[in-house]
Structures are given as C-alpha cells and as structure tokens.
C-alpha cells in the first residue's frame, strides 16, 4: 500500500501557480472582497478619511497651522451666535427649496417635450445636456459677465426690449436679486439632470397603458396625472434626493457669482465654511459649518431610500 501511494504521489505534479490562482479566484469568498477592495480603498481614502478629519476638526478649536484641542460641540453651539451663520442657514433652505422645486417642474416639462417625436431629436437631447457637461466654474463665469453691473447683457437686452427700466436691476448687488441670480444659474445647471433622468423613466412606461387610458377617454392631463406621474414616482424620488443633497452643498455657483454677498445674503454652508475655515483660518468652526446639516441630510436620505425600496418590493 505504501509503495502504491508513493507511486501516486510521484506521478501527480503539484498544480501550477496559474491554476492555483484560477482555483482561488473561482471561490466567491476570495473573488468578492478582491473585486471590492479597490473601491473600498478609494472610499476610505477619498471619503471616510476626509469625513473623519472634518468630524475631528468640527469638535476642536483647530486653527490653521497651530495646535488644536478637543472642545466637544462648542463650535456647533457657538455658530448660532453668528448672524452670518443664521443668514446662511436660511439662505440654504431658500436656495435649495426654490431651485429644486423649479428644476422638478421644468424637468418634467422638458422631459415630456423631449419624449415627443421632434425634429433633430438626438441633437436636441444632446444639446440639453450641455449646461450639465460644461465645467461649472467656467459656465458660471459666463453668467457672472451676464449679470455684471457694468456689462450686464441681461439688463441690456431687457432694456432694449422695453422689459426693464434703465439701468436695470443690480443683479449681484441687491440681496433678493442676488438670490434670484444664483437660483436661476442653479436651475440652468441642474435642469438637464432632471430632464434626462425623468426622460429615462418616461421611456420605460409601457405604451399600452397610454393606449388603454386613451380608449377609456382619458385626455392628456388625465393621462399625465393617472399614468405618467404615478409611474415616475420612483425616479422622481431618486432625482429629488440627489438634487436636494447636491443643491444644499452647492459651492461653485455662489462662489463665482457673489462670493456669498451682498452682506452674506447668498452664502451657503459650503461657501461660508470656506470663508470661515480657510480665509479666516478657523478650521474647526469651518468644519462645523460644513457638517451642520449632515444629520438632517442623513434622515432625508434614509426616508427617501426607504420610500423607494417600499415601492420596489
């Protein structure tokens, strides 16, 4: 028996490295973590680490280039004493509320339009995406010129069309106009995201449902209300979720257009955090500003994702 076994052992060659690797990779327990690892490393480096640092800073009296100490929630409490912060808090909700509401209504309208049989449909669908594709800082610079008090093409056009009285509104110098300007640019920038995503939802609605509704005598409004809208709810919830988060944390538009002015009337959390944390060096306070809405946004994400999941199952 022993000789026989030896013979077997000597004739069976050990598997090559390639074979062993292939066998290992065939096991789900090994392949899964291996495939996830790069994404995990990226997440840890690019999201978890900065988030952890921001959290630490927000709980400290950290000042640029100087040693810091843990101070608990003092930054978060003290921020309410700052009228710039209170103004920013209000601005963030006004800006996000107005922008997201307008983007939603206009986005549905644009998606319905793009879903029709149009001439040069592909070209138009591509063109609609342009504001979303162009780098924000660059396109907002264009808007800055259009709203600029000295060169405003918006005012020039309005005055020449008889719509505005000379010299026209001071878009970036008066608080309500300045807020209107940043909201307009945000809508212009974010509309393609709404339109294209909703369009994808529209395309997936079976034509038979519309035909059946039409056969039952439903007009365009009824078809939209009882067929389109209910079937778009899932898509709309996701779009609203993303847009609310992105709009709350907007930075580029306000930074390029108004820098938060006049008198802090357009500051958002991100722009105020930059001003306090980097320009005046109070990193701890700046981090607290940027994290202020984090708990609220987590709740919004949780509620909306739960709603989407409920609909899916």
């Amino acid at each position, binding site marked *: 028996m022993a000789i026989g076994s030896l013979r077997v052992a000597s004739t069976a060659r050990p598997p090559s490295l390639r074979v062993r690797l292939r066998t290992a990779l065939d096991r789900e327990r090994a392949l899964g973590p291996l495939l996830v690892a790069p994404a995990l490393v990226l997440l840890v480096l690019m999201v978890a680490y900065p988030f952890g640092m921001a959290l630490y800073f927000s709980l400290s009296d950290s000042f640029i280039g100087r040693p810091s100490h843990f101070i608990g929630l003092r930054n978060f409490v003290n921020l309410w004493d700052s009228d710039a912060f209170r103004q920013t808090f209000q601005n963030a909700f006004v800006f996000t509320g107005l922008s997201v509401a307008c983007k939603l209504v206009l986005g549905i309208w644009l998606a319905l339009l793009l879903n029709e049989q149009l001439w040069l449909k592909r070209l138009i669908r591509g063109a609609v995406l342009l504001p979303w594709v162009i780098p924000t800082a660059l396109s907002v610079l264009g808007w800055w010129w259009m709203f600029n008090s000295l060169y405003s093409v918006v005012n020039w056009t309005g005055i020449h069309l008889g719509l505005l009285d000379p010299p026209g509104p001071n878009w970036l*110098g008066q608080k309500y106009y300045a807020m209107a300007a940043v909201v307009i640019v945000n809508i212009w920038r974010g509309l393609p995201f709404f339109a294209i995503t909703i369009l994808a939802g529209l395309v997936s609605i079976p034509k038979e449902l519309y035909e059946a509704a039409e056969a039952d005598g439903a007009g365009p409004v009824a078809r939209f209300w009882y067929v389109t809208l209910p079937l778009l709810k899932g898509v709309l919830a996701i779009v609203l979720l993303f847009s609310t988060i992105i709009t709350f944390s907007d930075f580029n538009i306000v930074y390029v257009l108004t820098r938060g002015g006049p008198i802090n009337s357009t500051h958002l959390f991100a722009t105020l955090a930059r001003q306090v944390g980097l320009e005046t060096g109070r990193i701890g306070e700046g981090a607290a500003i940027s994290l202020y809405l984090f708990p609220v946004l987590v709740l919004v994400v949780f509620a909306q994702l739960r709603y989407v999941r409920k609909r899916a199952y």
Partner: protein
Amino acid sequence: MRPVNRRQFLATTATGLAGILAARTPPALGQTREISYLCWNNFAPLSDKKLAELGPRFTKETGIKIRIDHIAAPQQAAKYASEVQTQAGHDLVEMRMHVPWLYEPQLVDLSDIVADLEKKYGKVLGSGYEAAHVKGVWRAVPQYHTTFVAAYREDLFKKAGLKTPVTWEDLYTVGKELKKMGNPVGIPISQNFDTISTGSAVMWCFGAKEVDKDGKSVKINSAQTAEVVEWYRKMYRDCMEPEVLSWTDASNNESLQQGKAGWIHNPVSAYIVARDQKLVTADGINHHQSLSGPAGRHDTDAPRSIGIWKFSKNVEPAKEWIRYLLGKKEVYDEYIMSGGAFNQPIFTKLQDHPVFKTDPKLAILRGEGVNYHTYGWPAPASDRVQLITNSFILPNMLAKAVTGTSTKDAIGWAESEMKKVMAG
C-alpha cells in the same frame, strides 16, 4: 567590469531604495534644484510678464529651476491656509499686509536677507516693517508697496467746471454732480480689500479706529465711526449706484477705465492699465492728493512681501530667488519699472526711483502731506488685525448701514464681531 546577476541587482536596488525612503532625501544625483513661487495676479499685468521673463534668467544664472504660479488676490488666503494645513505646496509665497503675522510659526526666518537689502537700499519703509517684522524676526522680505490715491476723470471735471475735492465732505458735493452726469463715484462696499482700503482711510480721516493702540481694545463703537457710517450712507444714496455692493477689487478700476465712474479711490493701477492698453479714457484720467477729514489726511499703504514656508525642502534655493529678485539692483529696478509705479520700491534710499518720473500723472505718488498706514492702524500689526481684515467686518458694517440697518445696529454688530476675533 564584473557582470551583475539579477539577484545582485535586485538586492542593491532594494537596499538603495530602502535607504532613500528611510532618509526621505533623494541622492545628490537625483536632487533637482527646483523651486516654486506663488504670487498674486498683479493689478499691473506687465509686472507679471516681467516676472515670467526674470524666472528663466534666474535659472540660467544659478541653475535653479523656478516655477512661478499666480492666483487671484481673493483666493490667496484660502490657498495659503490649505498649503499650511497640508504642509505641502509652494516654497515661496507672496504675502499682502500682515499675512506674515498670521503664519508666523510656519515661516522661515529671513532676517539675514533683509539685513543685506537694508545695507544696500536703506531701511525698509514703516509699512513693510509693520507687515513682515514679526516679534523681532523678519518672517518675510518686503518687496514693494502700493499706496492709495484719488483717481478721477480730469476731462469730465473740467467739462463740468468741478473742483477736485480736498476733503471727503468735498467729495460728497462733487459726487452729487458726477452722479447727475452719469459718472458716479465708485467706492466699493462689498467683501473685498479695496472696500477696507477706502473704509480705513475714511475712518482715519474722521478720527475713528477699529482697535486701540494697545492692540486689544475694540474701539469701533464711537461717535467718529457713526460720522463715517453717516457719510457712507449719504454717499451711497446721492453719489453712487447700488452696483458698488457687488464689486470685486477690479470693478472700480474697470468702471473708471470703461468711462462710467468719474472718481475712484485706488492705487494708480486703473490709470496704468488704461494707458498701457491705450483705452480711450486713458488721457482723461488723472490723480489728485488723498482726501482729508477732521482728523487729518490719512491713506492706505499696502505692502507686499515674500516668505518661505518652513515645510519647504528648498529653503536655500528659495532664498537665492529672493536675493536675485530683490537684491540685484538691476533686476529689482527692472521689476519695479515694469509695474509702472503700481509696485513702489519699499526701501528708503529708493524713494527717488526713476519709476516715479516715467509719467507726470504719477508724481502724486510722492504722497507729500499724507499719513500712510496699514490696515488696523493705530493698533500695532498682529495676527488678530489680519483676521479682522480677512473676516471683512468693516465692509459688512458699511454695507449693512447703506442698505437699511441703523447706524447704531451696524456699528454694534461690527463691535461684537471684532470682539469675537480679539477674544480668539
């Protein structure tokens, strides 16, 4: 030569690499003498062009490569903060006003270079000393300074028979006429440095101050500040347009150059750019002496200096650049001349520099009879004063007042914000 086998090659390179990583210093052969310099986008653009020309010449003479980057003035504070926080970035940085005070623990002692420059050019002017001489150590090397003057459309004044103002009150009288002519006064009231420069000058002339001489007591809440606020309120209402609330540092320059503003408070850059770009308004622009008030004639002086971060691995080559740019008389002269007197020499023996004689419209820069100060005066320079600047408290106080907040409330708000900064 003995052949090297694969095993020996791997062992040698691995040992070498481990050594380099442990020492965190590349071997002499691999060390490139390369430095990077971050400075602002100069309002006299030819000055930046000259800098780009001087860089390669420096490399040719010294063998040290230099990369010169520019950044817009409003972004400097955040950029420097992020470089300090990450302990990475440029080797040399150009700094405005009291920024060296703010970053004192992060800046290399450059007293040796300043001592050499002072031997050659005389003492650094007071503004440069205040800005860069931090607690007995030169944390940056003063390179030039920029004084504010009154820039106006002389042609329009002559046409309308207007006299150039002597006091800030005179400006109100003239300003009303200018606004009627469609050429309003252009004093920014927004979150930018020009607003602080003009606001500070008006405050000093009216006898108001932000912080007292002791550098600790906030003194913004005073009858003099109330007078300043009231003056701004009537200027905004009768002599200016609401656009000033959205202006950047460049806007008043552009407004004068493009033929809109009739009077601005600014360094000579507005005229220099108009002249160099041959704009139609250039001939009509001139300057007159800084304005005065009940407490005298005061104006803003903005010094700029060059510092080296302590985290730089190229401190010696970086010092070489400063010695080349500021220490070589012919290079410094060339650099100063390129700025067309926007960048004024900051050493006492150079105050009769040829740059002041290049254009009769620049003669005003001699500043006779004007008391120049840096931000925060009469408080001594400090990191707190720089923080008050960076927090834009003065501009926001003025903006609040001209847009409806009562004088008392606007000043009260500024006082509370300044006290917060002083308390740390």
